[in-house]
């Protein structure tokens, strides 16, 4: 689950990696329309999100999370508490 604070942090990370004004980031923001979003910065973005939220994306997810909308929903799924316990801090997914 994503609260407002998490969403703000996520936007701030994208803003920092891709040199954007965070207030302009929305569901339409993607690799298609952001100048600095290339394959290299994509990795930096993924690692930054993992570092910030203590989550880990799978190899498949790495290639799919190429828009703010997809990133946001993949992250929300990982942050969703399962049996009352949040995602483990070491980045292991809770299954």
């Amino acid at each position, binding site marked *: 689950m994503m609260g407002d604070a998490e969403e703000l942090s996520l936007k*701030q*990370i994208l*803003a*920092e*990696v891709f*040199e*954007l*004004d*965070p207030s*302009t980031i929305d569901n339409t*923001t993607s*690799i*298609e*329309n*952001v*100048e*600095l*979003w*290339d*394959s*290299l*910065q*994509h*990795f*930096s*973005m993924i*690692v*930054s999100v993992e*570092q*910030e939220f203590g989550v880990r994306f799978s*190899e498949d997810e*790495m*290639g799919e999370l*190429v828009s703010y909308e997809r990133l946001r929903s993949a992250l929300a799924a990982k942050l969703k508490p399962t049996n009352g316990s949040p995602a483990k801090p070491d980045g292991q997914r809770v299954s």
Partner: protein
Amino acid sequence: MVIAAGDDSKVPAQVNVAIPGDAESLVAWVVDKPTLSRYLAAARRLRMVTPPDWPRIRVAVLRNFTVEPLDAYASVKGAAAGFAVDVRIGGYDTSMRDSLTAGSWLFEYQPDVVVIALSLENLAPTLFNRYLTLSRSQASEAAEQTVSSIRRIVAAINERTTATIAIHNFALPRNAPEGLAEATSTTSLTSRVRALNQELGAIASGMGNVFIVDFERIAERSPIDARNWLAARAPFTPAILEQLSDVYARILKARAGRSRKVLVLDCDGTLWGGVIGEDHIGGIRLGDSYPGIAYVGLQEAALNLSKRGVLLALCSANNEADVDEVFDHHPSMVLRKSDISAKRVNWTNKATNLRAIASDLNVGLDSLVFVDDDPHQCEMVRSLLPMVLVVQLPAELSELRAAIESLDCFDAVGVTDEDRRRVELYRNEQARQAAQESASTLDEYYRSLGMTAEVRRIDHISATRIAQLTQKTNQFNLTTRRYTTEELTQLARQPGVEILSIRVSDRFGDAGLVGVAIVVRGADAGEAEIDTFLLSCRVLGRGVEDVLLHATAIQAEALGYRRLHGTYAATARNQAVSTFYPDHGFSRQPGDDSGWSLMLGDSDPSVPAWFASVELPTNAQAGAAAG
């Protein structure tokens, strides 16, 4: 993995107002939260806002895998050290071509530093990935080729530039291809990689401008990211990037001659546990078992540094004779007097003492590292002498040794003959000078502490602690009279007696009950005798004694006394207070050789202006006792 990127209208770079706008704030912003995204954002902005007068350092990186986020980390870590770092990264597998071609980008760029970051897995894939398919001689040949190509790259760079060269050595294999035998076999891949790293070290050790970046050790501590390695040949995690860029920053500082030269050590709580002035030579913690062994470890680390050419100095608030006794006679002391190049063991403030030490050794204050366990001393030095690197020792004794060993500011220490001659002079006691710390600056510092003091009469709760202080306080103790709780309770019931204690706290916290004054009837009517006046050495030098004396005078007056009389009874440990009374307005009276007197009412001792608040007891007994 392929990420398709369309070419139609894209959002260009925008301004993110959450990112600071000047170099120093950018560094602080990253230090506050050192995430990859902050490094990237800060490094981009640094390019625009780095002050033009910062020394510019061009760093070229030769690599065979994805190292890219390193440029952001190196830029920010460089900026933290005051360098404008410009990083240029070469092509994926062009390091040999770039370094062997006279007109290549590498030489056009005129680098100050060349980083050679080559992955063994990419450089010699068969050796690393199919090691067991190779015969011994094939493996040796592959290893030899690897070293020889790096040797050629280094030679080519040295031929055409004066750049400092930093060679990454190789990570050990993540797993053991030979299973259990990996560690026993001298021909295993692990042994082979270790041998390669030794050869790289040998290349560096022959040349003054070549350093090894110990990636073997870094990768042991922080494993590479296997997913990102496979998917993008990008093995560096944020933890690895931090450590690598720390090493780069060290190299930048060392080549700029910005290493520090002197390790200045406090004594009590630093070289040994406890307080020598209170606990005596048999009571301090220093020895073969916990906790004393922790201090032995710290001393060993300092001794090792001195063998690297770092000068050691002492700066501590003690009686010099006490410290000398430990150095001369304690069986577990590691450091000897001959290891110490300069010392200030006295009751002067440490900022003044550090200036004097720097002057003795003919080095700048920016050459000093000051180590102390006391947060007050550390904060005072930080605030008065910001160019001194202050190391506040951790509370956990198991971390003491590492606190010294992990100091990264002593690389390439070069001390001139002139410096050493100065040290000799000092040893002959010919170069003692005193620097006077300007009072206004100290005042400002004390003011910033927000100190509060509370003086109270003895009660059944404080009696135990007061008795304890009379028992164990030796240094700031005018008469050294020892009392038990029982004796104090009886004494307090006598007419004309007042037993006061003082508690102090400041923005660092509550120091607790730290001082005691006892007033009894004196020889003459109207005279109050100061039977006991003492202060814990934890709070010396901050005016706490002035507050206690002020309260003593006020209380004596309230009891109807007209005069205060105090004596100093010399012991082996209380020289520091031998002139306490004359220093505080007391004077000798005709016919009285034993003490000093102060007429109450006209010139009572005052409270230092830097105290934020002072609370005195209410004068319930006013006028009751002096008879």
